[in-house]
């Protein structure tokens, strides 16, 4: 086994977006994670994608509302211009409801699927709608790594920040499948996190993070409700990082990635 270690990938967090069951935005999540407010489970609330043209807005699925909402909250939090930002979208699956409807129809006698259903079935549908909504022509990477999707997204987004010396918006998100697929993949609800990462600090930076891979065990959360979210929603494997940011605690935190490899982030609040 190799013992070579690499220099950590460093970036600054400039803005956060969060949507999760019982936590409709980052300010609510921050208060919960800082222990100022109890965690109360509730279905995720997805914002109306008002930035999309009318035709696209009508067709927007839950996963598109979710990812647009996450990205726009992080961009607004940072006071950034979405139309210029390179993006990394990371999700364990695409639009579960659309996939179910397609598979159901293809199993029937009438296989004439709707063109919209088909183009919404691509894993990068949310990223495509993001580009249309924000008029952003910058590069957009779309990643999936099943339960390790958050870690994979972080790895690529941080690498982009370091390689290009430009800000990158990471949007990590997951949505549920309806039955019968739900029995095989039990992601409970739509949820995710967006981080606007920058190569240099600014007066508005929330923290610096430095990423290394490790084999140490991932951090867990004390609150059983939050710990369940961390385990059930791949994008919310980020919760231990977000808790550190909410509590403004400096130090390392290990996030789940892909066994035996994990991700360690050294967090330094600004």
């Amino acid at each position, binding site marked *: *086994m*190799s013992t*070579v270690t*690499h*220099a950590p*990938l460093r970036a600054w967090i400039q803005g956060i977006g969060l949507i999760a069951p019982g936590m409709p935005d980052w300010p609510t999540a921050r208060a919960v994670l800082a222990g100022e407010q109890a965690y109360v489970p509730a279905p995720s609330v997805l914002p109306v994608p008002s930035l999309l043209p009318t035709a*696209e807005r009508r067709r927007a699925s839950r996963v598109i509302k979710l990812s647009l909402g996450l990205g726009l909250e992080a961009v607004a939090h940072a006071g950034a211009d979405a139309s210029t930002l390179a993006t990394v979208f990371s999700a*364990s*699956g695409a639009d579960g409801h659309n*996939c179910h409807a397609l*598979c*159901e129809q*293809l*199993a029937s006698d009438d296989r*004439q*699927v*709707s*063109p919209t259903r*088909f*183009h919404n*079935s*691509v*894993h*990068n*549908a949310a*990223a*495509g*709608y993001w*580009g*249309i909504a*924000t*008029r*952003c*022509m*910058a*590069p*957009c*990477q*779309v*990643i*999936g*790594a*099943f339960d390790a999707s958050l870690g*994979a997204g972080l*790895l*690529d987004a941080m*690498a*982009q920040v370091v*390689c290009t010396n430009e800000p990158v918006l990471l949007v990590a998100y997951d949505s549920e499948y309806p*039955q*019968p*697929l739900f*029995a*095989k*993949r039990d992601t409970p609800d739509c949820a995710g996190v967006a981080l606007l990462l920058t190569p240099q600090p600014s007066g508005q930076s929330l923290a610096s993070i430095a990423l290394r*891979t490790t084999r140490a065990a991932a951090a867990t959360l004390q609150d059983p409700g939050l710990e369940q979210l961390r385990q059930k929603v791949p994008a919310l494997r980020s919760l231990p990082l977000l808790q550190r940011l909410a509590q403004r605690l400096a130090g390392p935190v290990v996030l789940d*990635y*892909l066994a*035996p*490899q994990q991700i360690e982030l050294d967090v330094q609040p600004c």
Partner: protein
Amino acid sequence: MYPLLLSAYTLTTCLGQGLDAHRDALKSERSGLKRCDFESVTLDTWIGEVEGLNQVQLPEALARFDCRNNRLVQLGLEADGFAQKVRAASERYGADRVGVFLGTSTAGILQTELAYRQRDPVSGALPEGFDYGGTHNAFSLAAFAREYLGLEGMAMAVSTACSSSAKVFAAAARQIKLGTIDAAVVGGVDTLCLTTLYGFASLQLTSTLPCRPYDPERDGLSIGEGAGFGLLERADNATPGALLVLGVGESSDAHHMSAPHPEGLGARMAMDAALNSAGLGAGDIDYINLHGTATPANDAAEGLAVSTVFGDRVACNSTKGATGHTLGAAGAIEAVICALALTDGRMPGSPGTGSVDPALPLRYQRHSEAAPLRRALSNSFGFGGSNCSLILGVQA
């Protein structure tokens, strides 16, 4: 960030398994397309099917990954001794220092389509043996390849529709450059399924004839399946004749989910970015493997973009008349076709293209021809407006 050494590569498509089968087919301008007889599909269209997938057996320990897509992963990895070369790299660098970056559009969704036909009539449940994570999920091919090759490092699937396995080169290059890994398996695998066959038909993007890229009569694509793989390493010790990845350029159309920007603006930005990342000018490129899906709108948009960047000087064509459009695997497959063209000094032909659309002012290469080539560019553009251009070259 560039160059990177492409120290091994291989491909498997309807033209056959491995490099030699493709060398012969591309030289003789053979097409692997046939009338669609896939599974229970009743569409009047043509497909590129890989032979022998039903006979592929996955190792028993990896049975949870068994589906058409992962069978093609294994068939593709075993071609040209590619898997052995990766295992040798893993010995050299360490199993956690070799990453896996694979592109796909639908992974093993066929397995879910079949499972939906076997739902319990009373409860509606899917069959017990159906494994979503191992087969359907976009990451299944990367997870399977990683375990099959005995790797323990980072892995990810890129899924940006038809640019997926071009964009894996960009993701892998970043990590090698930053030293988080020393080598990367890159590539793409997509297989025939009902979702893409009926889906593209619903958009009226499939042809009832073998596809005819850049032909004035072109009327749609032929869907194919295939696998393309490469092994990327640092290029410090590249010897003359070695294959190099010189640059990658990415952009987004921000225009429409399933139609390209009509003037190919996003495509142009991707090609410019690729040239920029390679430190090259348009005059340095000798051959372009076009995305060339053979739909009226796609070829028109790409043709305009290519002529804006390159004029009509650079020989270019689409090889999709030979392989069909292999969707998420097309980027990797066509990168390997460029590697073959560069090492063999021979441009591929363009079966299916009877004449070239006079509205698209390009130097379109209809026939295979010997030519000294030093640098090739490959275009891949996907739904959602995701664009990627790759530049490969030969070490002088």
